[in-house]
């Protein structure tokens, strides 16, 4: 047998190597797998989506815009557009590029698949918000028509993606664009977020971190050159205009307004009673359905029964039954305190 010191060393080195390769998320193996995309077809499909997006938002498409959006250099972008023009999906005009009828159809098909995937990832998996877009970007390029059908069936024919974007129908129909960017609001306007743009990822991550999501009501407090200040869910949030522009809102008529500050179920103490105001949109998919089925809906009166010996799940009296919810779940349920029970 070899020297003990040598074999001990090699075992340690081996273990460390394995850990470095397979450590959750940051391991080399996972990084390598993430980097394995970007073929030509993928680029073309992404280009079509981008062109459609700009058309939908009324922006003229240019080579510069495309190269920026896809993260490729100008030459590559130009070659890509030439190729798309050859197969008649795009045609060039004096100022830029436009989708042809076929190009638009193809673009809508891709967008449909992308948004369906996002919906699926949001509702049916336990992935983080910031992962949905990234994964959908990869998944959308490798599905057959049957798989799309299966996806539609599985997600229950959704009409909107989790960011609030409408999902094109199979025949490529989309409702007209609603709402305006947050930056167009006037001070003291109350508005509802209907969409949060998921690209670029860093901006989206910032918006998610601020707790913004479609369905949330906000009131604009201040509009300065460098930042916008508004109230959302009872908290004051400051955003740079570039960031805020990625949030689409609709102004609400007075009767629909219900701003915070909200208390959540998590803030209740034992024996305190409250009425449910609403369930945050951030509670979605199976989780949301389960909570609703248990009878947690606006108007339900809930009292706190007991807290776990380890402090976290708390049991609530909900319509006659005692149901334990975790703190992270209780934080998604907005309430209105009633009175302290005797």
């Amino acid at each position, binding site marked *: 047998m070899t020297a003990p010191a040598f074999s001990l060393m090699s075992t340690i080195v081996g273990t460390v190597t394995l850990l470095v390769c397979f450590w959750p998320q940051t391991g080399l193996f996972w990084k390598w797998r993430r980097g394995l995309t970007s073929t030509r077809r993928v680029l073309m499909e992404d280009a079509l989506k981008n062109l459609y997006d700009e058309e939908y938002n009324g922006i003229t498409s240019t080579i510069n815009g495309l190269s920026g959006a896809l993260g490729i250099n100008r030459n590559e972008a130009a070659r890509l557009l030439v190729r798309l023009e050859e197969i008649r999906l795009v045609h060039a005009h004096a100022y830029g590029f436009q989708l042809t009828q076929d190009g638009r159809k193809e673009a809508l098909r891709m967008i449909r698949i992308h948004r369906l995937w996002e919906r699926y990832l949001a509702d049916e998996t336990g992935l983080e918000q910031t992962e949905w877009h990234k994964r959908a970007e990869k998944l959308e390029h490798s599905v057959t028509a049957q798989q799309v059908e299966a996806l539609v069936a599985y997600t229950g024919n959704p009409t909107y993606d989790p960011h609030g974007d*409408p999902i094109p129908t199979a025949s490529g129909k989309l409702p007209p664009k609603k709402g305006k960017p947050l930056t167009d609001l006037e001070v003291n306007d109350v508005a509802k977020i209907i969409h949060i743009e998921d690209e670029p990822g860093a901006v989206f991550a910032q918006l998610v971190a601020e707790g913004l999501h479609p369905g949330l009501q906000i009131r604009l407090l201040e509009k300065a050159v460098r930042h916008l200040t508004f109230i959302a869910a009872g908290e004051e949030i400051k955003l740079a205009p570039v960031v805020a522009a990625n949030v689409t809102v609709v102004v609400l008529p007075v009767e629909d307004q219900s701003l915070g500050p909200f208390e959540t179920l998590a803030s209740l103490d034992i024996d305190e009673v409250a009425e449910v105001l609403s369930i945050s949109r951030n509670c979605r998919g199976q989780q949301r359905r389960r909570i609703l089925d248990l009878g947690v809906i606006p108007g339900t009166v809930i009292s706190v029964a007991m807290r776990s010996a380890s402090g976290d799940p708390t049991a609530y009296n909900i319509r006659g039954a005692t149901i334990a919810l975790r703190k992270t779940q209780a934080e998604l349920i907005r309430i209105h305190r009633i009175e302290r029970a005797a």
Partner: protein
Amino acid sequence: MKAAEKIEQSILEEAAALRWDIGDNLHDTLLESIYQDASKIADRVVSTTAGKQHFNWERRLDALLTSRMFGFPLMLLMLTLVFWLTISGANVPSGLLANALIDRVHPWLKDLAAGAGLVWWLDGLFIDGIYLAAAWVISVMLPPMAIFFPLFTLLEDFGYLPRVAFNLDNLFRRSGAHGKQALSMAMGYGCNAAGVIAARIIDSPRERLIAIITNNFALCNGRWPTQILIASLFIGSLVPAAIGGIVSAAAVVAVTFLGIILTFVVSWALSRTVLKGEVSSFSLELPPYRPPRILQTLYTSLIDRTLFVLWRAVVFAVPAGALIWLLANIRLAGLSLAAHTIDFLNPFGLLVGLNGVILLAYIVAIPANEIVIPTILMLTVLSAKVTGVGEGAGVMFELTELDSYQRLFSAGGWTLLTAVNLMLFSLLHNPCSTTIYTIYKETGSVKWTLVASILPVVMGLGLCLLVAQIWQFLV
């Protein structure tokens, strides 16, 4: 037919068009409507005849069982009591069963076979191989399970177990698991197959898979005897006899705790890697306390759990018994197949601080952990060519004196390292075939069954290798 299709198409299109108008929260609206009606109806038909019913014993009991001060001590007390009742209560019937099935019926069958003039290999294969394996599994497995499962079911029917899950959820949440996993784990201490089935109570797919895959880290009833025997032989004997019992018990407890720690570590890693994308949702209903019906519970838990698991175990033990006997009795170039395999496995076994006999025993004893020690004994006799011990090639046996175990093991070349690693490997190896089959039945997936089966062996071999390396470095 065409016209009909058109009608159907038009209905679907109308529905699709209307869906754009209602928006995305139909489910919310619908449930609100249903509950509105439900509460109207309930208001009209329910009346309370007395004041608030809140200050009753149920509330008091809940407050006590989930209190910061008493919640955990009471839980530990309860679990200790269940384990103590199981272990001490199972000793006598286990001994009686072993006495009857192995010491009486087995020789009687042998005599019968001899009287009938049965060929030696038929007699060996059926009576020494198949019958003995089945008898062994039954006598070791049946009594503890017949005590453990009803006790557990009583606690469950009373309503205490959901409170345990409630108290422990915080701990499990941190490693990405569900509080109810505490219960499937506890069930796993009785039998992993039953623990895997118990994971059904977890209704979130991700957490349920985690509970199934990590259940094997709970030392099952078939592995306790191995742990206790090896600990008292090798670790208890290192210290003065007066404290030997305590030290060896401490060693077993340490292995159990290692299992618990690994459960959390593996749960954490699984929920962040391979299981990241599975759906996760949490809800836990704490049902009202209901007085358990003792007789019915005894009956149903015996039928549903004990006999069910036992039957599966016997079915899997039968071919194992046959295989063990055949390996020990088929000879090739003057040596039995078992001896050949042991020679082949030995260098690798020694590298990881075990030996060829142990590895072979774990391979052929996949069906049931209960037969690992008897198989090891038989194989050691066979390969170390000890005379005067045992019953012959392919016949499993157990010894009555600790001394004779020690003599046999030192003849087989065992050291303290072998013992420590055997304890570790007994904790960390593939689940028995009953459990593997149950995992497949429960998950319906070959992939997860493979993960659950291979992951622990890899971890076990890795850990044994590491321990062996450090040992050789230090000693």
